[in-house]
């Protein structure tokens, strides 16, 4: 059963006087629990696709349904609420808040949901255990390595147990060994919680470890290697 249904999605950006099509009619079904990589050269539209799936941007044509909800019809606030409740994000440059501790950074999505402080603490500790950073819960991100910071970002994405985690080039700022360990971690989370992961990537290692690889070129799907185990 598909968690995401993408139908005829188009997106065009304006650059000066010219229209630049980023996506030119994409159809895609993503099943629950998939570990999917979207790859392609620069300008192929993979980040645009992720932004649309993440309700961060509005589409110009077509439709996207996530868990049966048509996100194209949502206004700005509804999209924010949807992101708050359903989606997790991992960014290339971690985007942690430097004045908050590791625990407080991980807690942000739960604070946004207005959860009880005790439950927030328990959930954060649980996910930090899973990413191997429970002993660093009270540290500030600035005192962690790049790999550890990305683990914190993964923990933050997973802490509210979202249906879908979107990761924009999550290994791009990491060396290959660290990037590999982050992938192992996400794969383990995918297996343990059945969370759907969608990555955009240039990284061959990520493509090789994905259960499904979608290749984009000039805003169109040129290859979809299907579900691999």
């Amino acid at each position: 059963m598909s968690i995401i249904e993408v139908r005829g999605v188009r997106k065009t950006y304006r650059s000066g006087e010219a229209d630049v099509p980023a996506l030119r009619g994409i159809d895609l079904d993503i099943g629950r629990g998939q570990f999917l990589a979207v790859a392609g050269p620069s300008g192929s539209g993979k980040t645009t696709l992720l932004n649309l799936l993440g309700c961060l941007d509005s589409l110009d044509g077509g439709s996207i349904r996530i868990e049966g909800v048509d996100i194209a019809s949502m206004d700005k606030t509804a999209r924010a609420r949807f992101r708050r409740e359903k989606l997790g994000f991992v960014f290339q440059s971690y985007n942690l808040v430097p004045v908050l501790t590791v625990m407080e950074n991980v807690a942000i999505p739960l604070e946004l949901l207005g959860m009880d402080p005790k439950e927030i603490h328990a959930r954060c500790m649980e996910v930090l255990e899973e990413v191997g950073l429970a002993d660093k819960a009270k540290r500030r991100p600035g005192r962690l390595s790049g790999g550890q910071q990305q683990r914190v970002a993964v923990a933050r994405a997973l802490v509210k147990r979202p249906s879908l985690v979107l990761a924009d080039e999550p290994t791009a700022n990491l060396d290959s060994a660290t990037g590999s360990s982050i992938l192992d971690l996400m794969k383990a989370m995918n297996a343990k919680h059945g969370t759907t992961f969608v990555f955009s990537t240039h990284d061959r290692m990520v493509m090789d470890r994905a259960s499904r690889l979608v290749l984009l070129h000039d805003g169109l799907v040129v290859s979809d290697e299907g579900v691999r185990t």
Partner: protein
Amino acid sequence: MNIRYLAGFAFRNLTRHKRRTVITAASLAAGLSLFILFDSLLTGLENDGTRSMIWYDTGSLQVQDSGYWEEKDSLPLDRAIADPGPVLDFLGSKGFKAAPRAVFMGELIVSGDPWTESGSVRVRMVALDPGRDAAVFRLRETLQEGKWLSDDPSGIVLGYQLARDLGARIGYPLTVMARTRDGAFQTMDLRVSGIVNTPNAAVNRLSAFVSLDLADEYLYLEGSVNQIAIAGDEDADPEKAAAKLEEGLKTVAGGLSVLPWTVTGAEFLAFVQSRSGLSRVLLLLVFIIAAVGVSNTMLMTILERTREMGMLRAQGMYDRELRTSLMMEAAAIGLIGGILGLVLSLPFNAFLVNTGFDLSWMIEKVGVDLPFSGRLRGAWHARTMLMSVAVGAFLSFAVSVIPARRAMKLSVVEALRHG
């Protein structure tokens, strides 16, 4: 999202650039403490002036003939309370301390030995009943040399500055020329019996005092006076007290008005109010400091944190929540500035209240006709102090509205791509 979480988040953000936060708060603190100190001096001036006016010149309330006030500048003796006795009895029965006075314009003429120079000067003559007057005014306590009118009812007591200007000493003879009640000129040959040095510069410079009996004899007052001054409760509303008393007096005599010190001292109050315009200018300056300083700090903050704010919005934080958090951050800078300003002003204000500045030399030189003592002191004004803290926070909050709105203009995608 929990407002406490947003507030906590805002406070944590203040620690990112401590120096910037401290500099912005300090500039606000400097402006606010200046405002507090200026207001303290103004309040001190008002309190001191009001006290000096009531204790040495006007009393709290004054009973007058209803036609007197319109002609007050000429201090007419024919607009008088013809028979003050029943009025004084009524006031006494109501528990008021009252003092009858005849106030009139006089010309002090000095010539010959022992004066070093001859000449004349126009003064405000106050004829008073030395016994009753002491219950309302504190003139006797300020006697610097000589005798008060109770001990020498045939003499004249001069204000300190007036005596200095004339070169007067105790025992010097002088002549007072004034109009009688029916308008004829009359002269009184008197000797200087005392010199009073009150905390009221106007009284010291312009007034001379004689006994009411003496004035009655020379000016044919026939027992009439043109003022009955009353000592009142200084905390009571003077207008209400005056209106109530005026109503009560109707049972005793017709055609009388009761004026509160806010009316008899209107010139002084107008002077104070004109100075409070300066206080508003200072507040405007503080507002500009807040507007420039806090907006600039917030703009820098927003620029530096654009990507982070993009992340928070991507996580589902609503724009209004983020805006609130930013504005709370600005308000916190203002609050710190306000508290710092208050703390900074305390020792300076303690100095102003306890010691103040001696400006008597200036008052003597300029010849100020206002009821100031010459020592400029501050006053503790809790409302202004608390208001300054609130104003600091509120102004900072208000001026952060535009930068906070600007922060939301970028889309989430643009914000995440920033930098």
